[in-house]
């Protein structure tokens, strides 16, 4: 009789513990990069913030967002259960260390120039003779440098809009959503002469996080592509997937 009670208690404990894990909000770490994710201290905003909101709503999971520098965020997620980081590149080196929700972000990169430019680009190589503006830490700046392009780096991407407008650089390499955001602030509306590269970004979650949560999040993410939610969201930010 005592034995039966102990088993019932143990089962109850396990059920409650599993509900507790289920109920514990997932901690989502991201970093400050407008217009994808930024905060004014009270409210978080941006394309990725809207993606997260819908993603967790569809998955019926609680979550909380915290801003951290990317390197620290990745280390935290490696060690802390129930924690995720986005957006990050899903490389083979990282593959085995996380559970992946992907792709949370499809980014297109273009070369912007002034409307009066006389330079016509059929291929990326056509831009080889010219200086291309980018910013320190930019992945696409590195990509272009690897191919032997002359890339001039600024400390912030915003400076490149001004450099382009003042004709100090003929081309500015930028991610399309970020570029729209920066151009809006500068009061200009330029179109890319060539959209030359696409990157996919993922959300990496701790390897020990409840597999069912990861599965629910991945299914919800795909449903957001399939029913047009993400197409509409990208359009709101001035671009398409």
């Amino acid at each position, binding site marked *: 009789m005592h034995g039966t009670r102990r088993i019932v208690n143990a089962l109850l404990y396990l059920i409650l513990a599993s509900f507790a894990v289920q109920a514990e909000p997932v901690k989502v770490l991201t970093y400050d990069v407008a217009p994808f994710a930024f905060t004014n201290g009270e409210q978080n905003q941006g394309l990725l913030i809207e993606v997260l909101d819908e993603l967790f709503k569809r998955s019926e999971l609680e979550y909380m967002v915290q801003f951290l520098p990317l390197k620290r965020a990745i280390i935290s997620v490696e060690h802390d259960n129930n924690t995720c980081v986005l957006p990050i590149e*899903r*490389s*083979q*080196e990282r*593959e*085995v260390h996380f559970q992946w929700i*992907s*792709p949370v972000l*499809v980014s297109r990169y273009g070369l912007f120039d002034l409307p*009066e430019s*006389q330079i*016509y680009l*059929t*291929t*990326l*190589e*056509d831009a080889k003779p010219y200086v291309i503006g980018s910013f320190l830490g930019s992945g696409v700046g590195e990509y272009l440098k690897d*191919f032997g392009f002359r890339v001039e780096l600024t400390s912030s991407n915003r400076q490149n809009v001004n450099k382009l407008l003042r004709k100090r650089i003929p081309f500015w390499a930028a991610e399309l959503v970020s570029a729209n955001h920066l151009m809006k602030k500068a009061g200009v509306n330029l179109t890319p002469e*060539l*959209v*030359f*590269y*696409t990157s*996919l970004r993922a959300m990496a979650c701790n390897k020990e996080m409840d597999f069912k949560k990861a599965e629910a999040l991945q299914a919800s993410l*795909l449903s957001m*592509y*399939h029913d047009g939610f993400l197409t509409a969201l990208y359009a709101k930010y001035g671009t398409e*997937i």
Partner: protein
Amino acid sequence: MRGTIRSIYLLSLIISAGVNSARVVAQPETEQSLVAQHWVDSELQPSTLSRDEQLRELQWFINSSLPYQGMEIRVVSERILTHWYEANVLAKAFYELTGIKVVHELTGEDDVIQKLSAQIQTNQNLYDAYINDSDLIGTHFRSEQVVALSDFMANEGQAVTLPTLDLQDFMGIKFTTAPDGKLYQLPDQQFVNLYWYRHDWFSNVAYQRQFLAKYGYALGVPQNWQAYEDIADFFTNDIKEIDGKRVYGHMDYAKTDPSLGWRMSDAWLSMAGVGDVGLPNGLPVDEWGIRVENCRPVGASVSRGGALNGPAAVYAIDKFVSWLNLYAPPESSSLNFTQAGEWPGKGVIAQQIFWYTAFVADLTDPSLAVMNEDGTPKWRVAPSPVGKYWQKGMKSGYQDTGAWTLLKNTPLKRQQAAWLYAQFVVSKTVSLKKTLVGLTPIRHSDIQSDVMTKKAPYLGGLVEFYRSNAREVWTPTGTNVPDYPGLSRFWWQYISKVVEGTLSSQQALDQFATAVDKHLDMLSKRSSHPCAPKLNDKQPAQFWLQQNGSPKPVNLDEPKGKTLPFEEAINAWY
């Protein structure tokens, strides 16, 4: 404004092409045909086609692309010289001929696969075509998401299929054809992993005498792993120094990194003789140790009829690790694929059991220590030696073709426009020139051409290999592997544990085989495809080891080393 600039540019092409227009027979002097003349004369030489044939082929592209003029399509491939040439030169030519603008993105092969998978899963038209390795053929035909090109060419793609495409001229067409007999990918570039060695050192009479005295057979191209091991020992421990430099008889890499997996999945086990007889891949057991029954993968572990943890696989991994520790430069175990790739050019390596010929262009740089003053290399490539479980009729090395792949969820008009570009960059008008640029030949007609005969002495044996029947025996991952992206990542995770010394080869392969079986089981539950995996029940290992073929029981033979002179080593495959 931009349109005006383009017109001015085209006009300049027309003027320059006009100089040669007298040679054109029965070509209408339209703007586009003059553009075609410009490209044929200024860039697309040499070709196995006559100039007139080239112009006719380009005219077909001009005419067939009219409904797609003004479109912009997006394709993606890995970053190698061949694709750089396509992205920056051929895409431009195609645009000027057809008015279809192509953004040909270059990225890592891993990223290409992720993008292809993302398009399938999200149903978003990320790209209009992909160039991805034919290693994925087993994945593609089971996925039902990839366009069967043979169906496409006969139906909705018929009007945009080049009459002179000549599929039988592609050397890698077998690699991209599935068990259902359908073609799923069109080869775009092809490379092979071959034995690489310093022909000048092997030709040194003093070394030849010393080797013969010690081992009782001639120093030459090793035909089996024992000879490879003897030569490795000879240069690392007997010769030791050449021209004042420390030299090594073996080179490899083993950093815990995804590229360690390629070393293995790019068919190390095939050389050892893990799989069954059968080309392009062993049947029923392939070189990954996966058994199929009626096209259904049924297991990788010996207990399910596979060979991934069988005696031949253990032998293969033991040799990999022992050669690395005994004969390679001490740094090699901490190098990855890219870092190790620079070593043969340094002039301190005597041989490498297999080496990617995608590096031939890099290793013929005249400034390197491994080049002669006349522009010929001091090195040669030859068919790799085989291990003691290998038998005639088995695959004995790795070759792959990066191939054009269309996804079903790309809108038809975009598929058709992308298909035109795909055919353009592999057309006979273009392919010989592209071969000379990137040294990744795809067509029989190119490899048999006089141009390649003249080029052969400068390419260290590459042309001879492709002219021999060996090209049929070096093959990619086959159709036994039902989920290449999902399964390939296991290789480096388990093999690295052997390199690090945390597990024995047998222990690591046991765990690896179990992980593969588990993955196959997961796939079997997700798919209703008639060729989807369906695991065999477990049997005692002895049950399978006593059957004919793979998995094979322990072979206790210690074969004597065997070598051949370079010419005979190549001729053995004619």
